């Protein structure tokens, strides 16, 4: 592998970088010939070493893979079969599937007649008819017309996607350097069926990573880990396991927009929002939880659990020990579950300590059965494309059920093997975590300062890729409509995609989530400039 070749014809490569393949648009630019692995894809390419990494990394991946195969070419042995069943009876389980009550109304798109199109389920219809939320529209626009410093300076700047590009170079470098691996496996080890809930080696590696990321405050047991293709299926699986159709989860607002889909869509489970207010800095109040629980009870809705995110998405705040203990007390009192989504645990940048739900569980107590943690590698390791989500539970029955469900959303063994190696390099991981945190902190400080100069205040946040900004002074009317009008201006005039609070079910209009991790420091003035254009014309007269 000769690196000198990479720097050939730079200018033509730069040009091509701009011809980025659109995800949603009709005119797909295809550049692949039969041999090429890497296809120029649309994306917000910042140009920082992108070229170099873009050529070296895929090369490294391939070098890695073919070297791996070369070293371990031996007789493929039969893979381990499915996880063994609970009871090895000689009988087929006689099962009657209970008819679950429909929670979605059926809507026929066209009248049913012979020759007319066949029926599509209520679940499908609700999606097709639902149309696109601002969250989706914004993402799409940003993808269709992405900002690029030199190539597309008027494009849409993406501040609506909680993705961390700040430290990708570190991961890339690691891949370029490391083609070392020590497992004794043949292609059978990558190609064959493996346990759907993930390789044990990866579970061990992930347990170690989780511990490192949380500053070694907790020890995670690999056998309590279920791996799945991303955090979305992890949440959906827990929803399936902990609640029946028609049951509900209490979720403090504002919450991450996609939770609606993950928790409710196919499961038929409800979300009962528990409002948090700006007066409390959007902190969770047990009183509000209690009120929501009782209201649900009166309505005849069975509440099965609480879903929290810590660090919070979209606010970015951390739950302190006291609140976590209170939550546990509350859950114990009502005999319900707690799902703690700790996806951004490693992306803290403030001075407050992050406390995982795992840390405060009293291991001797019954409480273990009600606590489940969701984690993933998309945020803390910047690898959403690899699709790695984690359910960490103390409840054996939940683990057993979730394990069986992983067959529907299992991680590619190829990616698992690669990750085992990466995660096992603890020096690299330690370095990565530290540098990433530092970069996050810098960006956060600069970005928030920039907003402050415009007169926009944010809730003090200690984690996550975003800040929760108070734009109440700029909305034409103190309502969701007013908020969406501002959002629209920001998207279509200022060409900045941000997430409006209404998408996050915030009860107070005027709050917006700004993600800053897809930017470089150079972009900040550009962003602020654009926002200023809107804020200057939008000061509400009150």
């Amino acid at each position: 592998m000769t690196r000198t070749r990479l720097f050939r014809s730079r200018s033509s490569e730069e040009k091509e970088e701009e011809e980025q393949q659109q995800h949603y648009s009709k005119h797909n630019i295809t550049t692949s010939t039969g041999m090429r692995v890497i296809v120029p894809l649309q994306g917000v390419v910042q140009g920082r070493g992108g070229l170099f990494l873009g050529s070296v990394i895929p090369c490294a991946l391939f070098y890695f893979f073919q070297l791996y195969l070369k070293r371990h070419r031996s007789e493929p042995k039969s893979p381990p079969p499915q996880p063994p069943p609970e009871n090895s009876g000689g009988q087929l389980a006689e099962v009657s599937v209970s008819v679950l009550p429909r929670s979605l109304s059926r809507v026929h798109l066209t009248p049913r007649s012979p020759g007319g199109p066949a029926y599509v389920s209520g679940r499908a219809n609700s999606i097709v008819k639902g149309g696109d939320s601002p969250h989706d529209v914004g993402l799409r626009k940003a993808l269709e017309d992405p900002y690029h410093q030199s190539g597309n300076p008027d494009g849409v700047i993406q501040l609506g996607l909680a993705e961390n590009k700040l430290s990708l170079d570190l991961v890339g470098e690691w891949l370029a350097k490391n083609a070392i691996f020590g497992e004794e496996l043949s292609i059978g080890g990558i190609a064959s069926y493996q346990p759907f809930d993930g390789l044990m080696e990866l579970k061990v590696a992930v347990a170690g990573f989780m511990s490192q990321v949380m500053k070694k405050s907790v020890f995670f047991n690999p056998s309590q880990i279920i791996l799945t293709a991303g955090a979305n299926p992890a949440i959906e699986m827990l929803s399936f396991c902990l609640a029946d159709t028609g049951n509900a989860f209490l979720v403090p607002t504002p919450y991450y927009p996609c939770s609606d889909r993950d928790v409710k869509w196919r499961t038929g489970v409800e979300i009962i929002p528990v409002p948090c207010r700006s007066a409390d800095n959007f902190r969770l109040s047990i009183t509000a939880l209690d009120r929501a629980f009782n209201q649900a009870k009166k309505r005849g809705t069975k509440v099965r659990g609480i879903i929290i995110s810590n660090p919070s998405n979209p606010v970015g705040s951390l739950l302190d020990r006291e609140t976590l203990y209170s939550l546990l007390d509350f859950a114990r009192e009502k005999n319900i579950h707690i799902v703690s989504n700790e996806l951004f645990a490693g992306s803290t940048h403030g001075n407050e300590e992050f406390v995982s739900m795992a840390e405060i569980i009293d291991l001797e107590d019954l409480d273990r059965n009600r606590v489940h943690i969701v984690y993933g590698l998309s945020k803390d390791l910047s690898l959403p494309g690899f699709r790695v989500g984690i359910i960490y539970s103390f409840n054996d029955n939940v683990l057993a059920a979730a394990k069986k469900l992983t067959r529907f959303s299992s991680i590619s063994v190829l990616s698992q093997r690669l990750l085992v190696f990466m995660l096992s390099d603890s020096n690299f991981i330690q370095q990565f975590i530290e540098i990433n945190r530092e970069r996050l902190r810098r960006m956060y400080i600069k970005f928030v300062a920039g907003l402050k100069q415009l007169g926009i205040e944010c809730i003090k946040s200690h984690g996550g890729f975003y800040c929760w900004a108070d734009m109440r002074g700029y909305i034409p009317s103190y309502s969701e409509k007013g908020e969406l009008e501002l959002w629209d201006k920001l998207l279509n005039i200022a060409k900045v995609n941000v997430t409006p609070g209404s998408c996050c079910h915030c009860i107070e209009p005027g709050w917006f989530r700004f993600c800053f991790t897809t930017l470089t420091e150079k972009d900040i003035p550009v962003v602020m400039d654009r926002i200023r254009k809107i804020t200057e014309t939008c000061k509400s007269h009150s």
Partner: protein
Amino acid sequence: MAIEIEQPSVGLSKVAVSETHGEDSPYFAGWKAYDENPYDELTNPSGVIQMGLAENQVSFDLLEAFLETHSEASSWGKGASGFRENALFQDYHGLLSFRKAMASFMEQIRGGRAKFDPERVVLTAGATAANELLTFILADPGDALLVPTPYYPGFDRDLRWRTGVKIVPIHCDSSNNFQITPQALEAAYSEAEAMNIKVRGVLITNPSNPLGATIQRSVLEEIFDFVTRKNIHLVSDEIYSGSVFSSSEFISIAEILEARQNKNSERVHIVYSLSKDLGLPGFRVGTIYSYNDEVVTTARRMSSFTLISSQTQHLLASMLSNKEFTENYIKTNRERLRKRYNMIIEGLRSAGIECLKGNAGLFCWMNLSPLLEKPTREGELALWNSMLHEVKLNISPGSSCHCSEPGWFRVCFANMSEQTLEVALKRIHNFMEKRERDRNLKVI
């Protein structure tokens, strides 16, 4: 397990505690026995030989060879921050290059007799997910899909568990080689109606698992006419389409549709995967190809729960868009499977065992009904038990595939080396000889 507690322990959902996951059937129990005592040529020659897992290991070397010779060529991608995109890419549309490669691969398998549009390819993490997803989309809880028996045991779980949808069997039997008849289709539909269950579609597997045979053109036409008449969907699971021993013998539903200028096609959805044909089940690659725009849109969004790792998509896009490789692979794979099939059929025949005439797949459908003590399910399970614990072969009993006639077994032959297959055949031979001897002794 759980410790004894006084307070009621916090509850789980019906889905979590239901047994619809089906993992308590012999189909899976046999795997447990294998797991505890797996055969190994050198270290455990008397262990259980796994013949219950439909996995294709006969063509690994072709995959390896490709990857070794194409690593350099594929890495000098012009422009692009490949790794950056790779690492961050999580768009449920999937990589266009990969979708194109899949569409082209599917066309090649069908000898170019059908065209596939990459825009209709929806990616999922395996065909298991694809089947479940389609069920979520096409039916509501309490509705039913009609599925011809015998069928893949996993359907009980994949189609029913979380979806709450029922399966109503279309009964097929050996009198006509288990082919689907219009009468059987009507009977199943009526059965559902009588139980007040709405039928939403028919799901066929072509080539069939466990029969190991393709569905004939006339039968496909009949099935398509049936679903059109009833205004329901047709899901055609064609995951073994590349494992047909002779290319000309496989007719895809796609061909039927093209012959009719795609009239009424919006009710048809094809499921495919690389787990069987390409022997890459670990990669978790499945697809839904739907002729219905709405289904494509919804399936795409729902695939958020089951995305394929971008790294895997990249790798496979390169492999599958290389026509030279795919042509050679498909051809060679077919030949090797045919050879294996012939080997096992001959071996079984010389032991006095007949199989259904097959022409596809990674398994054969073996008839052991003459050996049954009683022609019942219990008799079949008793025989299955003997095979597992005495002969040390894990094969799948027909009852776990809901076969209406006892005595049939699915035997996989592609997940082992030729030597191991010979060992297995020898054991069967010895078993049959012993039975013959025992019978003769009884007579005397």
